């Protein structure tokens, strides 16, 4: 049940209460939902709103979490709106990511389920430009928007207990990267040479929701060379 709506960054948003100090915003548009989520998240972040602790951009929503000292005040919504009047468009970063598709571990299942050969799947997967939709599920797990539906594959019947860091997977009509080793049920079709995520650094990754990502296929030899060089 929506609390109401507000005008923010050029469009109208439904506002839901998620907790004592957390709100959920959903764009009331039918197109370019992700773009609105990303540009508005950036805008909110740059507005440096008092007490705003976390902003979680997701596919069709932005979650705002304030610190616990914050007292509920309905005016907060209009405050957000008035503090962020101008539309902001960010220069999107484009990252080219090396993937060794030879290191995929679910090729048999992927070939059977798509009816395509491994080479065809690789060519379809690596020709696309993807948008980093959001990170979540696990730290640094990267959800990418833009998978060609010809290579959509249902998740594994039984999730793996450990998926190696840097694994590139397909889960349903989504593709993504497991930055850290974690449990997971996606079909693994390759591995990247980097993990993109280091908890010893702040922020832990250069990547950000809204960034563009392209995959560049590399051979086993090139993979070994880069990994050895990175130590």
């Amino acid at each position: 049940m929506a609390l109401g709506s507000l005008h923010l960054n050029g469009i109208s948003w439904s506002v839901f209460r998620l907790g004592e100090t957390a709100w959920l915003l959903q764009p009331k548009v039918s197109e370019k939902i992700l773009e609105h989520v990303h540009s508005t998240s950036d805008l909110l972040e740059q507005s440096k709103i008092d007490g705003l602790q976390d902003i979680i951009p997701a596919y069709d929503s932005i979650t705002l979490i304030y610190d616990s000292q914050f007292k509920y005040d309905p005016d907060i919504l209009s405050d957000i709106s008035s503090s962020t009047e101008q539309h902001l468009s960010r220069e999107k970063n484009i990252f080219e990511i090396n993937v060794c598709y030879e290191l995929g571990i679910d090729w048999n299942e992927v070939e059977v389920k798509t009816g395509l050969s491994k080479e065809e799947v690789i060519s379809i997967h690596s020709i696309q430009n993807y948008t980093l939709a959001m990170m979540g599920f696990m730290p640094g797990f990267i959800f990418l928007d833009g998978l060609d539906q010809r290579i959509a594959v249902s998740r594994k019947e039984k999730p793996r207990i450990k998926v190696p860091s840097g694994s590139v997977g397909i889960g349903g009509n989504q593709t993504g990267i497991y930055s850290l080793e974690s449990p997971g049920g996606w079909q693994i079709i390759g591995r990247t040479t980097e993990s993109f995520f280091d908890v010893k650094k702040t922020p832990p990754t250069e990547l950000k929701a809204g960034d563009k990502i392209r995959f560049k296929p590399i051979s086993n030899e090139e993979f070994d060379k880069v990994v050895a060089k990175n130590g």
Partner: protein
Amino acid sequence: MGKLAVIDGGLFTTVQDEGRFGFRKYGVPVSGVMDNSAFELVNSLVGNAPDTPVLEMTLKGGRYRFESDSVIAFAGANMNPTVNEKSVELNSTLKISAGDILEFEYARRGCRCYLGIRGVWEIEKILGSYSTYNEGNFGGIEGRNLQKGDQLHWKEIQADFQSYTLSQKEIPYYSSKLTVEFIPGPEWNWLSKKEQDKFLSTEFKISSESNRMGIRLNSDFQIEAKSKEMVSSGVIPGIIQLPPNGSPILLMKDGQTVGGYPRIGKVLDIHLNRVAQVPPNGTIRFKKSD
């Protein structure tokens, strides 16, 4: 320099503090203590800064040898604490000598006991927090629960401070049959009136598969939401998720940052402290907050 050696880590003991904030957009959960009120109490009893970490012991505490004279306190679940096999009080500032052995047993009441030690703990902060996040293998001691052979070190604080003991009437009573209040969540109306009433009248049993990520709730009835398409969206500790199997999950401190199940409600933060003290097989009822 203060020092403690772990002889036995107990069932599941981790270093925790207030939590890790500002990194949820990268998928990093907040983590931090499950029972915030017991955490605040132990740091106050030993005169520590409120952001000092503590040990959070779950169901069965461990066995520790102090290698230095120390000031300690514990609060939360009663795990029959003993020093050199003599019973000692919870909720009280305690002085302990080098060589003393501190031991905890199974929780008699409550689920989590917090051990505070006076001093500035020497643990590396990860993304602004000392908290252990086991699933991510980071924070605390090597991102895991305490094991035999681990050591904790801290800088001693020389300033004077006032020892005290909590009065009997201030000590919380941990019921294993709890009623908690919740705010209806964004998808509360995905439940029909009949399903909402069922949710409000059911006494849910806490499954033994519960952990710091979430409390899994079972009952004889399944709660059914309208089957609508839902994409992953933000969640926070205290959110009650309803997966298709009809058994709700109450997300806790290590819970993920986004989820794809209907969010039927959010348990009030002040009640989450009590939830953290209900052991497996305890029960929870939900009441809509005004």
